């Protein structure tokens, strides 16, 4: 029996093992990162003090913290007042978590200017600051229908009702979201929903059709819309109808009887500038033509400012009408 017990004990030693050393190895996030005290280990720094977005440059910010925490980077243009917000929940700010591509969260868009950068932390009073200078602002790829910076194009046409206080003009105040100018649409028309409209005809761009891709699933229409309550009623009365007329038979003009007209109506319920984006293939329309979205045969983009005739004064504005491919505009 003694030998048998020794045999069993020998087997237990055999079956025992030397597991690889797990010392220093932990599973999951470090508890210190979740519950530890908060400290700023290294200060907030931009990867470069000057950035030329037009040349394809980006800037990112670095900072090391003692734990994982919710943080917010607020970048404010000193001249434009534009604001970019970047949020994260990390221990480090780095290229992955804190890169700024020159885009804007709150309009207007950034200009060539100095920007104040502020880093704040959830539940902590510490605030870090730095400055970064934009040598050239971000440029957006796409086909610009209108940004009103060079005045009125003679091939654009307009219809404005003869109501009270009608103001359908290119203005610079309040500040435009993109550069300096925008198109204002306001007035009181108490007999019709339509207060005025603008037709952006393809002829303004040197052709019978606007030069766009033929893939409506990959094409986005973007416009920055100004919302404001009417005066003196204080109600949001405006709505904008965007219309897209296709010259399907390519005879140089749109015929509503046998060609497609697509549309999208936006009711305005906000104050200030807001980006509106929709995919071309999502537009709904008359279906009088082939009932297929053909953006490459787009003959005219119309912007109609509408308001309930009984509601009184209505006001809105538009700026930076641009078609982009692959993705909506990142202003």
């Amino acid at each position, binding site marked *: 029996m003694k030998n048998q017990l020794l045999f069993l004990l020998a087997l237990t030693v055999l079956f*025992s093992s030397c597991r690889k050393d*797990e010392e220093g190895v*932990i*599973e999951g996030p470090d508890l*210190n990162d979740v519950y*530890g005290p908060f400290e700023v280990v290294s200060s907030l720094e931009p990867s470069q003090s000057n950035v030329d977005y037009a040349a394809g440059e980006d800037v990112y910010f670095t900072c090391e913290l003692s734990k994982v925490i919710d943080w917010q980077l607020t970048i404010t243009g000193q001249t434009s007042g534009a604001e970019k917000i970047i949020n994260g929940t990390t221990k480090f700010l780095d290229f992955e978590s804190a890169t700024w591509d020159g885009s804007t969260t709150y309009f207007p868009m950034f200009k060539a200017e100095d920007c104040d950068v502020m880093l704040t932390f959830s539940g902590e009073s510490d605030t870090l600051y730095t400055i970064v200078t934009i040598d050239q602002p971000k440029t957006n790829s796409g086909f610009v229908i209108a940004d009103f910076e060079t005045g009125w194009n003679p091939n654009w046409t307009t219809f404005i009702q003869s109501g009270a206080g009608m103001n359908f003009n290119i203005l610079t105040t309040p500040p435009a979201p993109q550069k300096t100018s925008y198109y204002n649409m306001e007035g009181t028309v108490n007999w019709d929903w339509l207060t005025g409209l603008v037709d952006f005809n393809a002829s303004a761009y040197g052709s019978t059709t606007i030069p766009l891709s033929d893939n409506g699933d990959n094409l986005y229409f973007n416009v920055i819309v100004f919302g404001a309550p009417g005066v003196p009623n204080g109600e949001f009365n405006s709505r904008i109808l965007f219309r897209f007329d296709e010259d399907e038979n390519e005879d140089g003009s749109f015929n509503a009887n046998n060609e497609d007209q697509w549309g999208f109506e936006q009711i305005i319920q906000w104050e200030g500038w807001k980006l509106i984006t929709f995919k071309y293939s999502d537009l709904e329309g008359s279906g009088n033509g082939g009932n297929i979205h053909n953006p490459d045969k787009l003959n005219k983009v119309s912007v109609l400012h509408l308001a309930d005739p009984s509601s009184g004064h209505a006001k809105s504005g538009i700026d930076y009408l641009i078609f982009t491919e692959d993705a909506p505009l990142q202003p």
Partner: protein
Amino acid sequence: MKYILIILSITICSFSGLAQNGKKVQFVGGARSLITNSNFNSEGDTTTVPRSSGGNTLLDLGFKINPNANTEILGMVRINNEFGGFWGGGVSFDIRQLYVRGVAADIVRYQIGNIDYKLTPYTFYNHNQDILTSSIGTTRIKEDVLNYESFYKENTWRQQGASVNFGIQFPSVVQEIEFNGFISRLNPTNFANILERLYGGGSAVITQSKHFKLGVNHVSVFDLDSTATDSSIYKNNVSTITYDIHFGDDQFSYGLDGESGTGFSRDSYPTEDIYNVEDYFIHFRMYLNNKDKGLKLSLGYMDNGPDFRSFGAQSKRINFNRDNSIFSRYTNDQVLRSISTYDVYNDPSLYNTGITIGLMDYNPIINSVLPYGIATFNRRGVYLGINYTDVNKLVKVDAKVYQLSEIRGQGTTFLKSFFMGNVTTTLNAEKFWEGDKALTLMLSINQQNSTRDGDMEFQTVDLNSTQINLGVEVELVEDIFLMGNLLAVNAEGTDQYPVRNAEGEIINYEEFSVEGSEVNLSGGLRIDFSKKSYLACMYECYSNNLSINDPYLINQASLFYVLKF
């Protein structure tokens, strides 16, 4: 071949019951009727409807057909009539069980359809991780109902598939090799992003002599490629060896047994692994059995790697992410009522009927030491087991004590230590005075403690829980029993509960803090009509103050009628 004799003894002996009474068609199954009336009370709660009554009558009617001596077909239909159902309303018909089994060519035993299957504790095994105390009386009745509803039979999982079994006996060197194999379907494809997922495996158990047995086991969860447009292939493979070396005779024996192996879990695209963990485990135990003195001792060691994954053995019975179905919301804010001991014993909808791929959540109050059973990963340590039954069957004691620790720290290099003691004592008191009416007491206690030191307070863990189940059955007159139970859970302390993503990786922690208790006091009367049928009525008072702000009470009266045939 002359040295190999294919002997059918295993097969034929185990299968001889198929048509033992010679009947071509038999009716098997069971019937149960349950009526409950519950009263919920939470202080200041004027929103929750306080009373709930319901119940059902169900019949599981099975047709067992023996078309020949080697084949058996079972089809079982469940007819369920909700209490108050009438003329078809509240009545449902389901297929509860369907299989064909038999012996092919007088060699291979097979079963196709519903199979209740298990292999070894680390490969494919239905551990009972969430009811750690044993019971008699009222809680025993409820446990039986839950087990029946969830198809839990001796640690098997219900699967839909096929299994085979056959044995080969040898004249020398090796006495016998027994082969087992199974394949089952875990989920069908949706022809989009979910692939056909199967679960299969088997074992070969070699009996060299009466002193030595060696098994080789393998199970695999795997996706069938090209059964959906998604190209992500999941696989969980576990391979183990089991062994049992022992000496002595039927009266006195001692030996060593155990199981060791590896397991990996992988989610991969054709070109890269997006998730891949692999680890091994070692588990062995020395044991001594003295039948004369009714004593069994065991001393074991286990080392289950932190990345060891075996979902056939780590699937939990209770899904703690489900909402309970009785008084699921309470307080004036109608917050979700978390799963309590009351629900664990009363709500079959919380229980899984099959294995789950992925690490399931657990309740640290119920089991923080071995939340996934003995196959729990990231555990290393020893345990001691004592089982004593006195020769007159007066007293039976079953005790096990674990002292374990983590192998890899969670969020810190400090490791958690775990202690679990589990003692169940059964006293057949009538044997003291040689009475002819049974008087049985069972006291089952489970004590757990999880601790972790740390440099910082948030690293420290100290969680204690105690579960007690005291049951009494008194035979008043022949076949009529008075039952009483005290089921209590007490927990206090704090822990850092790991929050895992779909791949099982820890992504965060939840601070788990508890100080309170649950108490369920119940009593009732059971009338045994036969060994297979009884009528029981019981009343229970349950209180829960684990949530300090929202304690509550549930009083419930129940009537059970259970019949098996």
